[in-house]
């Protein structure tokens, strides 16, 4: 026979309240940082919030935000997709090439084509990772090279200029609805859709489960392989979409589109409070992270920061924000344990 127990439950619940509040703060923290940054910059130079500049900020964030959402979906499953930049590059160039071949192509169809291309490339990643059971970081580092190489080989230093693409398409890159750029609307739509799915659908929750403990996920009968595969297809598709939007916004496309952006994306996701080891975080946070990074880059010159200091500043910010995030989750952890303990 064994001894008797009396679990201190009230303490526990009170502990978790703290926890939930802190998790809220998690996204809030980034939001506040963003507001603060904008406020300061505005104080220094009011033109920072001119209609034109706000539009530019939103436009600037759009592509990174879409990539970040896709990346977050993957990171939540305790994986990573380093090939996002190369996928964007391929799809952006494809957009131009297709328009050169078929100038009359309807724009929605083009969006579909780009997204589909991205999805296929994502499927390559996901297939290798899920079927061959190999680490995502290695595979996507490999496809980062391969996709970019294919892009180069295909483009053979051809550049596709604004003149080669339908004006309507390029207008989409700058047009606004009630001051909000069309592209930004794409980003918002994507964000809300993905966010809602992850929160309110079984498939979405299972992604979190897989990231939280892959082995346990398997024992609970979650089709880990299929889910991870899907996550990479999604990430690829979003990168593909981002590619088309990139073409619309920048008008000129060469094989270098999105070169080296992958680390920015991962940074945005991490800054956005998505745990790099999976299981926690939200796409909203990731998107916020993307907006924050873009705003910083836009604000530093306005603040008169010497261009040579800008990279340093961005690096410092990344460190600061993951530090903050850690501090918060540490507090959560403590509140949980002490909620459970005595004295």
């Amino acid at each position: 026979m064994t001894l008797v127990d009396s679990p201190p439950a009230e303490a526990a619940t009170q502990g978790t309240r703290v926890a939930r509040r802190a998790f809220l703060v998690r996204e809030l923290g980034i939001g506040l940082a963003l507001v603060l940054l904008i406020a300061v910059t505005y104080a220094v130079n009011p033109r920072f919030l001119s209609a034109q500049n706000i539009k530019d900020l939103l436009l600037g964030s759009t592509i990174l935000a879409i990539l970040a959402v896709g990346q977050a979906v993957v990171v939540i499953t305790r994986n990573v997709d380093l090939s996002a930049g190369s996928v964007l590059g391929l799809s952006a160039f494809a957009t131009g090439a297709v328009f050169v071949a078929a100038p009359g192509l309807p724009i929605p169809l083009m969006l579909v084509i780009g997204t589909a291309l991205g999805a296929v490339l994502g499927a390559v990643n996901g297939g290798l990772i899920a079927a061959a059971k190999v680490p995502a970081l290695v595979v996507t580092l490999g496809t980062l090279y391969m996709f970019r190489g294919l892009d180069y080989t295909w483009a053979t230093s051809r550049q596709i200029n604004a003149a080669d693409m339908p004006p309507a398409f390029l207008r989409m890159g700058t047009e606004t609805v009630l001051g909000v750029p069309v592209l930004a609307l794409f980003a918002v739509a994507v964000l809300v859709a993905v966010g809602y799915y992850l929160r309110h659908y079984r498939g979405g929750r299972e992604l979190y489960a897989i990231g939280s403990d892959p082995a346990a996920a398997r024992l609970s009968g979650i089709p880990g392989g299929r889910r991870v595969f899907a996550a990479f297809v999604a990430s690829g598709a979003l990168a593909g979409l981002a590619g088309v939007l990139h073409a619309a916004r920048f008008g000129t496309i060469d094989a270098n589109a999105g070169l080296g952006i992958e680390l920015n994306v991962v940074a945005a996701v991490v800054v956005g409070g998505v745990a790099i080891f999976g299981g926690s975080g939200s796409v909203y946070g990731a998107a916020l992270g993307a907006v924050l990074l873009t705003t910083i880059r836009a604000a530093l010159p306005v603040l008169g920061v010497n261009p040579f200091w800008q990279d340093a500043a961005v690096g410092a910010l990344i460190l600061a924000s993951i530090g903050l995030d850690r501090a918060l989750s540490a507090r959560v952890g403590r509140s949980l344990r002490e909620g459970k303990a005595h004295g």
Partner: protein
Amino acid sequence: MAERIAPVRRVLGSWDVIVLLAVVAVATVGAFTIEGVASPRFWRFVALEALPIALIALPMTLVVITGEIDLSVASVLGLTCTVMGQLWVSGVTSLPLLIALCLLLGAVLGAVNGLFVTGFGLPSLAVTIGTLALYRGLAYVVLGDRAVANYPREWTSSAIAPIPGTTIPWMILVLAALAVVFAVVLHATPVGRALYAMGNNAEAARFAGVNVRLTKFWLFVATGTMSALAGVFWTLRFASARADNGSGLELAVVAAVLLGGVSIFGGRGALLGVLAAVALLGVLRNALQLAYVPANTLTVITGALLIASVVGPNVAGMLRERLRRRRSTAPTATPTT
């Protein structure tokens, strides 16, 4: 998980040997089919190119085995270069002193990484993405758009001077010596055992008296120092200190480490394989360049190799299972970052 891991591990165990054979194969085939591969100059160039990557790959291997990663190495290299240049123009004219100061700087930069990772318990992937930007940024702060190039001839030539009677740069000997040190530490000392242990389960390692944080901290310091050494070599070889020196090198290093059979999850891998992988990438790249293969194709090949390096062993492992007609389906962790 176990029954999947076991056979895979057996293949991986010999993986470094496989990579080594691949190097030999490429070299021999190249020597007969591609004009110039047989010549000593070819190997001199390969050596010069591989050196900085190899230097950084040594400590990086240990870092990855403990389950961490350092993406800031190339930025450390760049920052060291600029500081070296700045010191030189501002009148530090003793090479030993310059080198000492640079290595010190590297150690400090590594220590900062180490502090963030072990002190504040942040994921190294995130931290070093941050310092990747930070250190590169600081490099621009130091030299801005300037490039420092007016080093004494004897310095620059001594950096790439060959071993008397050969075409092989003498720095290879330095690399070899360092490689032996790292290999012994990793494979034949209690420290090495601890590295593998903490790479698999840091908590259990801690309960067994391993000072996980301190060990990792020093590994990051080592990585910073070696990156700085690579930076010094870089500066002297190209006789030019610029803020963008060696940008993007981190991926090359990580690629080599992974191709060398080190598990990105930590806990598995060997130094021999990594060095072989560095050589393989170097030889392959130069040989194909000689064969007029365009840069873009080389990029594709690098990627393909990387993927093969992980898919190969795993598929081999699965096939072994099939052969054993073990239709077992134990839980296998989905790949993690």
